[in-house]
C-alpha cells in the first residue's frame, strides 16, 4: 500500500501564508512607495514614477503638533493604566478573593465594548459632568486620557497577571530568609523579574492609545487633535503627498520603536498577547 504523495501537502498552507503576509504588508509598502512619488497634487501613483522627497518637505506643522499630543496622551495612558493594572493583577493573583474568575472577566470587559460606543459614552459623561463639577474634561486631553486608560487597563492586568502566575514564590522566601525586608524583596527580586510583563502591558496600553481613532474622534478637537484623527480627517477630504509622507513616517518610526522597546524591555511581541484582546 503506497501513500500517495504526488503533491507537497504543505503547498497550499504555505502559499496561503505567503498570501496572508503579502496581503497584510501591501498597504504599507504602497504608502511608503507612493510617498516618494514626485507628485505635487492629490493624484496618487504607485509604483512611484521617480524618487522625490517633496511629500516629506511639505508636511504641515499641524502633524508635528498632533504627534506631540498623541505621544503625551499615550505615555500618560501607559503610566496610569500600568499602575492600576499592576495593582489589580497583584490582588487577583495573590490576594484572597471570592469570585476571582468573575473579577478577571470584569477586567476584560472594556476591550469588548466597541470603541465607537466607548467614545460616545465618555463624551456624554463629560457633558454631564461639566456643569456638575465645573471641570470640562473635553477641554484638553484629560478626558481622552481617562477614556483611554479605561480601555487600556485590561492589557496591563492580563500581562502582569500572566507573569505573576508563573512567579516562583520560593524566590521571595529566599530573599526574606537572607535578610531582605518585604519592600526590599519587592524591589530587588519581584519587580525585576516581572518587569517584562509590566512593560508589555504598558507597551500595549501605549499602542492602543496612540493608534486609536474612534474614541479620540469623539473626545478631542482643535489643537488637541491626535495624530491618527488628524490623518483620518484629512483623508476624508483629499490626498496630499504630505499625507503619504506622514503616514510612511508613522509606519517606519512605529516599526523601529516596536522592535526597540522589545529589546530594551525584554519581552516578545508575540508572547505578550496574553493581555486579552477582544
Amino acid at each position, binding site marked *: 500500500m503506497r501513500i500517495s504523495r504526488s503533491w507537497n501537502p504543505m503547498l497550499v498552507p504555505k502559499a496561503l501564508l505567503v498570501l496572508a503576509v503579502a496581503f497584510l504588508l501591501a498597504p504599507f509598502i504602497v504608502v511608503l512607495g507612493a510617498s516618494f512619488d514626485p507628485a505635487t497634487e492629490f493624484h496618487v501613483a504607485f509604483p512611484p514614477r521617480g524618487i522625490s522627497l517633496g511629500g516629506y518637505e511639505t508636511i504641515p506643522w499641524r502633524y508635528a503638533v498632533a504627534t506631540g499630543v498623541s505621544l503625551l496622551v499615550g505615555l500618560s495612558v501607559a503610566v496610569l493604566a500600568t499602575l492600576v493594572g499592576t495593582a489589580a493583577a497583584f490582588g487577583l493573583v495573590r490576594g484572597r478573593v471570592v469570585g476571582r474568575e468573575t473579577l478577571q472577566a470584569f477586567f476584560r470587559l472594556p476591550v469588548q465594548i*466597541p470603541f465607537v460606543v466607548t467614545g460616545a459614552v465618555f463624551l456624554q459623561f463629560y457633558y454631564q459632568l461639566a456643569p456638575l463639577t465645573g471641570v470640562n474634561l473635553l477641554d484638553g486631553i484629560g478626558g481622552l486620557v481617562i477614556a483611554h486608560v479605561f480601555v487600556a487597563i485590561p492589557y496591563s492586568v492580563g500581562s502582569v497577571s500572566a507573569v505573576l502566575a508563573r512567579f516562583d514564590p520560593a524566590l521571595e522566601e529566599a530573599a526574606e530568609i537572607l535578610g531582605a525586608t518585604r519592600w526590599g524583596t519587592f524591589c530587588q527580586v519581584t519587580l525585576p523579574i516581572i518587569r517584562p510583563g509590566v512593560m508589555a502591558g504598558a507597551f500595549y496600553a501605549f499602542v492602543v492609545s496612540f493608534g486609536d481613532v474612534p474614541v479620540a474622534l469623539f473626545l478631542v478637537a482643535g489643537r488637541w487633535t491626535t495624530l491618527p484623527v488628524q490623518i483620518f480627517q484629512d*483623508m476624508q477630504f483629499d490626498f496630499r503627498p504630505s499625507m503619504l509622507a506622514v503616514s510612511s513616517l508613522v509606519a517606519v518610526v512605529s516599526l523601529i520603536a516596536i522592535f526597540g522597546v522589545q529589546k530594551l524591555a525584554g519581552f516578545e511581541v508575540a508572547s505578550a498577547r496574553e493581555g486579552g484582546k*477582544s
Partner: protein
Amino acid sequence: MRRSSVHWERFLWVALTISLVLLVLPQANFIVLSFHADTGLGQVSDELTLENYVRLFIDPFYLHAFWLTVYLSALSAGSALLLGFPAAYALARIGGWIAPAILGLVLTTSLITIVVKLMGLNIILGPLGMLNNQAGVLIGLVQYTLPLIVVLLFGVVQTIPVALEEAAAILGATRRATFWRVLLPNARPGLVSSGLIAFNMCMGAFTSAVLLGGGRVRTVPVLIQQMIIQDTNYARGAALSTALVAFVFLLNLIVVAMISRSSRHAH
C-alpha cells in the same frame, strides 16, 4: 517582630474601584440618556420614553443597518478564518525561529495605527473599483482581524501535535481525510472562539467602515458616529449604541450555546 502578611487584596480593591467608576458611571449615564427623546440641537426632553428603542425594531433603515453589519462581520470573520487557518497551520509546522519572526511581523502590522493601513488600501482598492462600497469595507475588516486570527490560531495549531497527523498518515489517510478527521475536529473550539473574537471586532469596527465605505456603507458603528457627532441626536445615538452592545452580547451567547449543545451531541 512578627512576620507580617501582605494583604494583596487591598490593591485589587483600589484598582477595582477605579475600574468600576470608569465603567459604571459613564455607562449608566449613557443608558439613562437613551430613554429620553431628542428635542433637536443636542437637547433632550425630561420624560422617559422607549421610543428610541422601538424605532430600532420598526424602522427598516436600522434593521438594514444591523443586518448589513452582521453580514459584513460574519463574511469578513469567515474570510479571515479561511485565510488565517492555513497560514497559521503553515507557521506552526514550520516552527524554528522563522515562525515567531513572521508572527511578530504580522502582529506589528496590527500595532501600527490603522489609518496608515487604510490609506494604503485606499490607494490599492481605488483603481480596482472596490472603494466606497461593501467590497472595500470587507477587505478593510479582514485586514483588521487577520493578524489576531493568525496569532490565535497559531497557538491552537501548536496544541495539536504533529504526531497525530503522522499517525493518520501511517494508517493510510489522505491529506484531505487528515484535515477533516484529525485537524479540523481538534482545532474546532479554537476556530470557533477566534471566529467569534473576529466577528465581535468587526461588529464594532468604525474606522475601516468609514474610510473604505465613504460614508455610504452604513454599518451600525458608522451610524452611531453620524448620529452623535453630525446629527447631535444624543439619545437616539445612545439607544443605538446600547442596542449594538446588547445585540453582540446576545449573539455570542446564542452561538456559544449552540456550540456546546452540538458538542454534547457529539459525545
